[in-house]
């Protein structure tokens, strides 16, 4: 009963948050620029006629609250404006680039989560031994790295000096993409039985996914390690050991389950880092995703694209955290019993 209540409450909370996010994107796009019409028209080089036209189109002369309702109206009709760099609606562009970013992010998670969790467990079990220290140092260096620099260094070493990985892109040059079922090249390759594109897409995914996931791996590792240590020192673990349960049972059946809980929360928060990191990683690996689209839009002063991207990312992040919160509610018995 309590879990359902929690989930429903969480879902209802979603609505004001989403509205709040639109208020922020509205304020950033319509209030903050010195001249919003000029910003939407493409910056300092915009023609006066374009600026005037945009001012009329976007109702920028009306009072702010009225502008906001026009803005919301556009959003409800899935209209994020036109990207003048790509000469098409922002929504179309984002929809096209979304699968590439999503595939990259999923693979970054595939690298970060299992290795982070396992690394954290091993580190905790071997606390203060050499392997623990080495792991911890790698982890703390890992999230001190600027992600774009890590990308460049990896490119230099593994795509240039010892070229075992490709430099950029999702597939080898000249290869056509597999039949589009989902837009995720790996999945599509499996579904259409295309071994060549399967291998090529995996080969191209590795460096960018590792770059994107490394900082998250480090964060998850540290969280897992510290929560394992905390749990292993607690009373009920001592009881389990006193009962004579094998160390293996103690760790895997009892400690692990409880240590996972804060790790789930951290993973949700780290997802925001993955979305941010995608902007920089995709730029360096020339990955045709939303992040690269945003970076180009920033340089090209394509304001609609930047704001559209911001809103979409915010919505994705909110939904991701919602899923994490619900997962948390399902896993943590304290929520079920109405305690937490």
């Amino acid at each position: 009963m309590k879990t359902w209540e929690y989930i429903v409450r969480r879902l209802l909370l979603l609505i004001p948050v989403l509205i709040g996010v639109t208020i922020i994107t509205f304020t950033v796009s319509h209030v903050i620029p010195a001249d919003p019409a000029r910003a939407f028209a493409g910056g300092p080089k915009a023609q006066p006629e374009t600026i005037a036209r945009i001012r009329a189109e976007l109702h920028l002369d009306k009072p702010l609250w009225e502008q906001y309702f026009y803005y919301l109206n556009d959003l409800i009709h899935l209209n994020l404006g036109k990207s003048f760099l790509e000469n098409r609606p922002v929504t179309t562009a984002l929809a096209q680039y979304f699968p590439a970013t999503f595939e990259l992010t999923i693979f970054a998670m595939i690298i970060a989560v299992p290795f982070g969790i396992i690394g954290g467990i091993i580190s905790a079990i071997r606390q203060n031994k050499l392997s623990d220290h080495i792991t911890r140092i790698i982890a703390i260096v890992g999230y001190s790295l600027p992600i774009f620099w890590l990308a460049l260094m990896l490119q230099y070493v593994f795509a240039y000096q010892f070229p075992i990985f490709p430099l950029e892109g999702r597939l080898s040059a000249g290869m056509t993409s597999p039949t589009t079922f989902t837009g995720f090249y790996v999945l599509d390759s499996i579904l259409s039985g295309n071994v060549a594109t399967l291998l090529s897409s995996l080969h191209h995914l590795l460096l960018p996914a590792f770059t994107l996931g490394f900082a998250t791996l480090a964060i998850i590792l540290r969280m897992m390690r510290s929560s394992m240590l905390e749990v292993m020192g607690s009373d009920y673990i001592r009881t389990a050991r006193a009962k004579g349960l094998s160390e293996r049972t103690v760790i895997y059946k009892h400690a692990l389950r409880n240590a996972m809980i804060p790790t789930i929360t951290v993973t949700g928060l780290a997802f925001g880092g993955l979305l941010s990191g995608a902007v920089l990683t995709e730029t360096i690996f020339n990955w045709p995703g939303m992040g690269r689209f945003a970076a180009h839009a920033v340089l090209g002063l394509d304001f609609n694209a930047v704001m559209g991207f911001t809103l979409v990312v915010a919505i994705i992040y909110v939904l991701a955290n919602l899923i994490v919160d619900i997962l948390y509610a399902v896993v943590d018995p304290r929520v079920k019993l109405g305690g937490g």
Partner: protein
Amino acid sequence: MFHLFRKSLLSMIGLAIIILLLLVALFAPFLAKEHPTYAEVSTEQGTTQVEERWEIHFDRKLLPPSSDHFFGTDDYGRDIFSMIVYGSQTSLRICLLVIAISTFIGVLLGGLAGYFGGVLDEILMRITDVFLSIPYLILALAIAAALGRSIDHIMEAMIITWWPTYARLMRGQVLALREQQFVEAARSVGARNSRILFRHILPNSLAPLLVQITLDLGAVLLVAAGLSFIGLGASPGTAEWGLMISDGRAFMFHAWWYVTFPGLAIVLVVLGFNLLGDGLRDVTDPKLRR
């Protein structure tokens, strides 16, 4: 005992790195070989901005590291070591200003909301909820894009992005502390609310605040470098670490030093803040004391 020593070794290394950063920034004119000049230019928006200018020596371009140029030269012949040294001033300024102002705003709003509760608290919670639903870099990117390319603008953007974190942190601290006995005691002798907040609650909230500040100093540097890398922060020609990496990218394969050394500078400084922050957290977290 050995356990504690190990932990404090890493924190000491962190502290040493930060002190090194402060010294480099302070003594930049003495450490660097080349020096920039500063000029006031007017921007498109009609305001003035300080622009950093370096002397160009095309005959010296893209030289590898040597005893003359410790970190080599860039495509304009500028000494990269000097640029990194002066870049430390820019980085330090950005980090300190952003954190100082965000902390001030956040602690003030969060403290008031947590202490007085009620509608004020609810409003603050909703507002910070929304801000915290957008990843740092993305929000700062949008605001900086709206404001225009300059270091001041990315600082403003980052302040707007970061204050909610401190508001939440302070609010949480105040909520935990205001029910404690010493507050009750103070109230019972007739202390005013402002006195309670300043003399009792604030000093006891300092520890987690200090940890967060230290860790965030590193995070701010990473975001600022990222924004400069995309082209939002420092104007072209400035010796800012992130911008240097962006510039160096075009020459990476035959002039690896251009990209590598500014990056190492960033890694070192962020590592220093992270080690120090970790150490502070271990020292102040009662749960970790055995």
